[in-house]
């Protein structure tokens, strides 16, 4: 939801990043205010996942320019785990398997670490079990997933659902969902989308990376952006996604000249 005079949660300016010597992000400008839902679309390899991982602090990516403020503070001054504790959450496009580490145990440690940081009481294993089972009901997940190793042998869709379960438990301020819809069947998409809608409110914000309009029917974005070759080249309202769905990316007239320096801001108020 767009809230009048809402505070800025995330402010990205001229962000450039490289991996293995290749520049992938070439000047990203992006602003998110409390309460908003943004969708980022764009061709394969355009840098959407890179952008997500850079925000979360993945060490493989080198920041070569620009700045990111999270709630007014320099995001890059924080270690990845500190960003997470400050409320940055990334639902991975490809959640990794961690054999030998119980999913329930993992979720509890993540939750309790955050609770401690927020000055709240930790939950003991029994209390946590009750708590997590409630959240799993919301996502129609079988509690057996608590006893399995983190993501190990989970189907593609189960992994995605497990990511949103973590979002539900950690209640982040900024949730970045990287292609959470891909791999979900039709029912699962609806359930997961309902789960996400249930979690969004005026005290947080969501960035969804997706290729399909389908997801946006369930989680209606306030803004839609197109990323191409490491930049946001066009921004608009939810109707932009529909247009992309029917016409593809080729017709786009960039809001900015891809060959010049990016403009100071590319935020468009719908």
């Amino acid at each position, binding site marked *: 939801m767009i809230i009048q005079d809402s505070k800025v949660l995330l402010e990205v300016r001229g962000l450039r990043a490289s991996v293995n010597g290749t520049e992938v992000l070439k000047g990203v400008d992006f602003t998110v205010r409390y309460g908003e839902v943004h969708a980022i679309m764009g061709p394969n390899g355009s840098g959407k996942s890179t952008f997500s*991982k850079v925000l*979360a*602090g*993945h*060490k*493989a990516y080198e920041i070569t320019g620009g700045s990111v403020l999270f709630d007014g503070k320099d995001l890059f001054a924080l*270690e*990845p*785990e500190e960003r*997470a*504790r400050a409320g940055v*959450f*990334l639902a*991975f496009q490809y*959640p*990794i398997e*961690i*054999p*030998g*580490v*119980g999913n329930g*145990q*993992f979720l509890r*440690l*993540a939750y309790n*670490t*955050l609770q401690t*940081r927020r000055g709240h009481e930790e939950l003991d294993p029994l209390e946590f079990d009750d708590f997590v089972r409630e959240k799993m009901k919301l996502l129609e997940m079988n509690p057996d997933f608590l006893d399995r*190793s*983190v993501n190990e042998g989970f189907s593609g869709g189960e992994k995605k659902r497990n990511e949103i379960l*973590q979002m539900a438990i*950690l209640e982040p301020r900024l949730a970045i969902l990287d292609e959470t819809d891909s791999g979900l069947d039709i029912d699962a998409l609806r359930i997961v989308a309902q789960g996400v809608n249930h979690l969004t409110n005026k005290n947080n914000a969501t960035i969804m990376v997706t290729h399909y309009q389908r997801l946006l029917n369930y989680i209606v974005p306030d803004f839609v952006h197109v990323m191409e070759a490491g930049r946001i080249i066009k921004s608009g309202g939810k109707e932009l996604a529909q247009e992309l769905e029917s016409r593809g990316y080729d017709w786009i007239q960039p809001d900015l000249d891809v060959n010049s320096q990016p403009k100071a801001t590319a935020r468009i108020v719908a």
Partner: protein
Amino acid sequence: MSAVLQNIINQPYKHGFVTDIESDVMAKGLDENTIRMISSKKNEPAWLLDFRLKCYAAWLKMEEPTWANVHHPKIDYQAISYYAAPKKKAKLKSMDEVDPELLRTFEKLGVPLHERMALAGVAVDVIFDSVSVTTTYKARLAEAGVIFCSMSEAVHEHPELVQKYLGTVVPTGDNFYAALNSAVFTDGSFCYIPKGVKCPMDLSTYFRINTEESGQFERTLIIAEEGASVTYLEGCTAPAFSSNQLHAAVVELVALDNAEIKYSTVQNWYAGDENGIGGIYNFVTKRGLCKGVNSRISWTQVETGAAITWKYPSVVLLGDNSVGEFYSVAVTNNYQQADTGTKMIHIGKNTRSTIVSKGISAGHSNNSYRGLVKISPTAEGARNYSQCDSMLIGEHSGAHTFPYMQVRNKSAKVEHEASTSKIGEDQMFYFAQRGIDAEAAVSMIINGFCKDVFQQLPLEFAVEATNLLSYKLEGSVG
């Protein structure tokens, strides 16, 4: 993240201090005279001196084994002192007479010698350099008929038992290091559980090397008579010296009909510094003989220390229906080398063995599993299951698996599974993204990886092992 992991790995060794205590250290060097001197210092009977001299003669004809995947400069056996002992006036009558400096050492190490302070239900024997310092709970054990004392004491008080069993599981000419040990061993623990007795408490030995140029050659012998059972725990540490100390122990276990011996080790010898300077050479022969029907011997080891580990706790399954088990976690970091595993020798009918080995290598270390499963023609219906998993941390460590199988009976079933995994940057990032720091992440992954072995350990050992591992590997991932 690399830096974080580096820090974790490079935490200083906690047990590296030296105790300033007056010691009786024998001059370096080894010949027949050295052996006679050790024997006379210990006031030994003639049969034992004979045993030593025979072993020495055998050793002289043997070569250091070179098949293990470990590398070290040639050891100069003349540059080692074969006997070092804290000086004491006469035989100690009670704990109060133990040198207070020594007591403080063990308290620092977390091994309480005072009986009232000892872990509830654990009897402790403590070996400091070459000699046994004290054995706690002796009276309570005696009530049950259990003998638990130092090897030196056993030689004098129970010579018939020692003579009957010493060298029967690991014979004189078995291997180079065992033969050396048999010639020069100084002390160790002796346990005897009489027929039908379930040992009323866990028995434990704590080994400590304190003198820089001494070797430690201890000898342990455990006998469980028909229907007897015992759980035995062994822990080890040493000060941090820049030179290498040799530790060549021999442990022999004998289980008669329906007897059960469970032997657990948490080995934390000094491993050398981050450049591979110093550390203990741990060349140990451990073997159990399931002599009787339905007997069971189980080895559980957590090997975290030592510059070089060369160790294959084995079981000879002679009695029909006997069971051998080997559960192992071996962690190497920096320039440590470990070549460890087991031998399961099936001779009796329907004998069963289980091998679970978990190797973790970080830094520039090398970790090898080497195991032999041998099914003799007589071992009708024998079964073995082996599982060897390796985990690599960082880019420069190595893991190797050398499983050998000799199956000479068609009815036998032998299964082997192996896997290699890596703590990857993306796994660490996943933890971090959920707010979990590197240390907690590594400890969670490692504990998950080692679960099958840790659950075999007695509770207090399992906790110690978990801490030890996290502490060893802190900073090594990422």
